[in-house]
C-alpha cells in the first residue's frame, strides 16, 4: 500500500512536483559547481602563478661570495670554480615530486667582448626537448620559464643553428644590432682569446637585467669557453604547497623532526622538501628558495582558497534556502491531503514516513539532475577562466545528493509538524 501510494504520487502528481524538482536541480547545480571549482581552484591557480617564473635556484656548493651589482659580476677571478655537471640536470625530473617540476633552465655565464664593449654572455636552454633517464621527453627552457620575455625577431629553436644569439634590448640599442645581423664575440679564456661569429636571431625585451646581456645556446657557450658539460646555475619552477608550521620547522632544522614528521614533510610538496630532494639527486649542489615567488604565491593561494570557500558557503546558503523554501510551500499546500490521510486513520508516523520518502525521492532526482547541470557550469568556468576543464571530483556527487535531501527534509519538517497538529476536521471542512 505504502509503495503504491508513493508510485501514485509520482505517476499522477509529477506535474505538481516539477517545480520542486526544478528548484532542487538549480540549487544542487549551484552546490556542485561551486564545490568543484573550490576543490580545484588551488591546483588551477598554482599553475597560473607559475607565470611569475622559477621559485627554486640550484647552485654548486662553494665558498665563494658572488659580488654582483644589478647583474654585473665583479667577483674576482678564482681558480677551481665549481660547476654542476650537465648530465645530472635531468635528475631534477626524477625526484619524488617529479610531476610537480613544471620547468627548469640551466645557465652558464661568461664575459664577452663585442667591438671592444664588454657584455655578459649567457648560455642556456631556450626550448630544449630533453630526454630524462626514464625515457620520457619534455620541453624545458627559458621560453616557458620566463613567460614575460618577449622576442622581436625569432626565438632560438631546438636543433637550430648553434651560432645564433638573442640580444638584450639595451645592449642591442647601444651596439645598434638588429635581428639578422652578424657579429663577432671574443671571450678571454684564461689568457687565450677565442672568437666566434654569431647571428642575432632576435632582440630580447624582458624589463630587467637580462636586457643588457646576450643569450646563446648552452652548448655553444660551453664549447667556446671549453667548459664542456658544465653548468653554473639552474632555475627550477615547481608547483608547491604553501608553507605551514611543519615546513618551517623542517627548514630550520631537519634533524628535529621525528621519523613520522619527516615522512609527512618529505611526501608533501613544500618548497623545502622539493629542494631537499633535488639536493639528494644532484651531488654537490645547494638549492635556494626564491622567497619573492614562494611567499607571494603562498599568500595569493591562501587568500583565494579562503575567498572561494566563503563564496561557496554563500552559494550553499542561497541554494539551501531555495530548496527548503520551495519544500515548505509544497507541504503547506498539502494540508488537506494530510488531514484526509489522518481522517482515514493514518498515524502521524505513517504520514511522516510517506512524506520523508517522497521528499527524499524528489531531493534525489533533483540532486542528480543538479549534479549534471553543475558539472556543466563548472566546466564552463574552467574553460573560460583557465582554458582547461575543472576536474570532476567524485566526492562532490554524494555530498551534493546528501545535502539536497537533507535541506529538502529540513525545509519541509516545520510545516509538516504544523500540518500534523491541525485537526483533520478543520482542514477538510475548508
Amino acid at each position, binding site marked *: 500500500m505504502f509503495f503504491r501510494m508513493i508510485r501514485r504520487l509520482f505517476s499522477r502528481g509529477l506535474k505538481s512536483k516539477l517545480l520542486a524538482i*526544478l*528548484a532542487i536541480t538549480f540549487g544542487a547545480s549551484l552546490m556542485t559547481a561551486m564545490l568543484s*571549482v573550490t576543490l580545484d581552484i588551488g591546483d588551477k591557480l598554482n599553475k597560473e602563478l607559475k607565470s611569475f617564473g622559477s621559485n627554486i635556484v640550484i647552485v654548486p656548493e662553494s665558498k665563494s661570495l658572488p659580488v654582483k651589482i644589478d647583474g654585473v659580476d665583479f667577483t674576482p677571478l678564482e681558480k677551481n670554480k665549481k660547476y654542476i655537471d650537465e648530465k645530472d640536470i635531468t635528475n631534477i625530473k626524477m625526484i619524488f615530486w617529479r610531476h610537480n617540476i613544471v620547468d627548469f633552465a640551466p645557465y652558464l655565464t661568461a664575459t664577452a667582448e663585442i667591438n671592444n664593449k664588454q657584455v655578459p654572455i649567457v648560455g642556456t636552454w631556450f626550448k630544449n626537448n630533453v630526454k630524462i633517464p626514464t625515457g620520457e621527453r619534455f620541453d624545458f627552457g627559458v621560453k616557458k620559464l*620566463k613567460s614575460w620575455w618577449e622576442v622581436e625577431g625569432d626565438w632560438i629553436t631546438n636543433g637550430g643553428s648553434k651560432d645564433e644569439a638573442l640580444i638584450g634590448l639595451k645592449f642591442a640599442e647601444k651596439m645598434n644590432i638588429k635581428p639578422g645581423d652578424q657579429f663577432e664575440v671574443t671571450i678571454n679564456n684564461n689568457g687565450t682569446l677565442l672568437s666566434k661569429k654569431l647571428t642575432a636571431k632576435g632582440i630580447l625585451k624582458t624589463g630587467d637585467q637580462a636586457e643588457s646581456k646576450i643569450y646563446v645556446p648552452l652548448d655553444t657557450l660551453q664549447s667556446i669557453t671549453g667548459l664542456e658539460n658544465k653548468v653554473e646555475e639552474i632555475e627550477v619552477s615547481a608547483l608547491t604547497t604553501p608553507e605551514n608550521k611543519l615546513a618551517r620547522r623542517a627548514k630550520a632544522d631537519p634533524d628535529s623532526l621525528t621519523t613520522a614528521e619527516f615522512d609527512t614533510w618529505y611526501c608533501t610538496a613544500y618548497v623545502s622538501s622539493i629542494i631537499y630532494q633535488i639536493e639528494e639527486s644532484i651531488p654537490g649542489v645547494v638549492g635556494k628558495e626564491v622567497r619573492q615567488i614562494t611567499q607571494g604565491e603562498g599568500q595569493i593561494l591562501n587568500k583565494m582558497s579562503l575567498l572561494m570557500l*566563503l*563564496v561557496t558557503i554563500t*552559494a550553499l546558503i542561497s541554494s539551501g534556502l531555495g530548496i527548503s523554501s520551495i519544500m515548505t510551500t509544497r507541504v503547506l499546500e498539502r494540508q488537506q491531503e494530510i488531514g484526509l490521510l489522518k481522517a482515514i486513520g493514518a498515524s502521524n508516523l505513517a504520514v511522516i514516513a510517506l512524506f520523508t520518502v517522497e521528499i527524499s525521492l524528489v531531493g534525489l532526482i533533483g540532486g542528480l539532475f543538479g549534479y549534471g547541470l553543475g558539472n556543466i*557550469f563548472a566546466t564552463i568556468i574552467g574553460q573560460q577562466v583557465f582554458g582547461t576543464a575543472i576536474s570532476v571530483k567524485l566526492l562532490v556527487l554524494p555530498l551534493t545528493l546528501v545535502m539536497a535531501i537533507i535541506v529538502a527534509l529540513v525545509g519541509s519538517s516545520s510545516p509538516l509538524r504544523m500540518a500534523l497538529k491541525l485537526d483533520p476536521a478543520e482542514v477538510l471542512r475548508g
Partner: protein
Amino acid sequence: MQKLKMFLRLTLKSFKERKSRIAIAFFAIVVGIGVITSLFSVYYDINLKMSKEMRAYGANMILTPDSSNQQDQNNKMLSMNKFNQVVSKFSDQNLIGVRPNLYGIIELQQNSVKGVFSNMRPAVMVGTWFDQVEKVNPYWKIEGELPVNREVDDEIVLGKTVAEKLGYSVGEKIKMKLSDSYQVKEFIVAAVIESGSDADNQVFVNLKTAQKLLNKDNKISAAYLSVLNYENDPALLKGIENDIIGINLNSIKKIASSESKILDKIKSLMYLVVIIILLSTLLCVSTTMMTIVTERKEEIGLKKSLGADNKNVIIEFLTEAAILGGFGGLLGYGIGYLGAQIIGQSVFGSFISFRLPIIPFAFFLSVFVACLASIIPVRLVIDVDPAVVLKGE
C-alpha cells in the same frame, strides 16, 4: 477613492491572512538578494583587494638613471632631488613603498675564531631605507631586527650567504674597509636576511651611512617602488619620464605582466561565479514565488466570479509582489552588505567599500524578480473558468 481604499484593503488583508506563506516568500527574497548583494560588493572590490595582495611580490617598478648618455660617470647616479620628485608623482594611496639603493663594493673581514689572521673579502654594500623593507620586500625572512631609524649609522644587515660564508651572526661586530681607501669602520650585525636572490650576497647599511662612506652625498643608484593601480594608465610612466629629465622609470615586467595575467584570471573567475550564483539564486527565489501564487488559483476564481476582470487581478498580484520585493530587496541589501564585510574582513582583513549603485540595483532586481515570478503563474491560471475552480475536486 473608494476603489483605492478597497484595493489597499485587499492587499493588506492578503498579507495578513497568509502570514506563513508571505514569510517564506519574504525570507527567500531577503536571503537571495542578500547573497547577490554581498557577492556583487565583493566582486566590485576584488580588483583593488587582490592587487593589494599581489604586492606580496614586492616592488613592481624600478627607477634608474637614464643610461642613454653615459659619457659622464656621474650620470650613473641619481640625485635625491630627482628621486623625491618622482616619488611625489605618486599618490600616498597608490604608493605602497619605495626603497632607494646606493651600491658600492667594500671589503669585509672574515670572522676567525682565533682572531690571529683573517683576510678581507669583497662584497656588495647597499645603502637603503630599512623602514621600507617590509613594504617593498615583504618576502624577506629577517632574523634579528632591522635598524628602521634612518639615522642609525653603526648597524649593518647581512645577507644570509654573507653571514654564513664570513661566519657572522646577529649581535657580533664586523669590520668593513672601503676598497679604495684604508679607512676601516666597525659595525654591529643587527639582522641577517634571507631572500633567495642577489640580496643574500649583499650587506645593507642605512642610506646616509653609505652615502657618507662612498662619498656620494645625496646620490642613489636605483630605487624600487611598489605601486598600486598604475597598469590602467600606461601613459603615467612615460609622463613622469618626460617631466623629470635624466631618469628611467620602468615597470618590472616579470612582476607586472604576470600580476595582470593573474588578476584577469581571478576577475573572470569571480565574474562567472557571481553570474552563476545570481542566476541560480534568482531561479530559486522565483520558483518559491511561483508556487505561492499557483496555490491561489481558487482565490483568483473567486475574485473573477465577483466581477473582477483579468487586469484587476494582475494589478493586485503585481502590487503585492512589488511590496514584497521592495522591502525584501532593501532588507536583503542590508544583510548582504554585512555579509560582504564578513568576507572582506576574514579574507583581506579590510572592509569592502560601500557602493551606492548596488542599492538601487538590489531594489529593482528584487522587485522585478518578484513581479516576474508572480505574473507568470497568474497568467497561466487567469483564464480559468471560475466555476471549475471553485467547485473543487
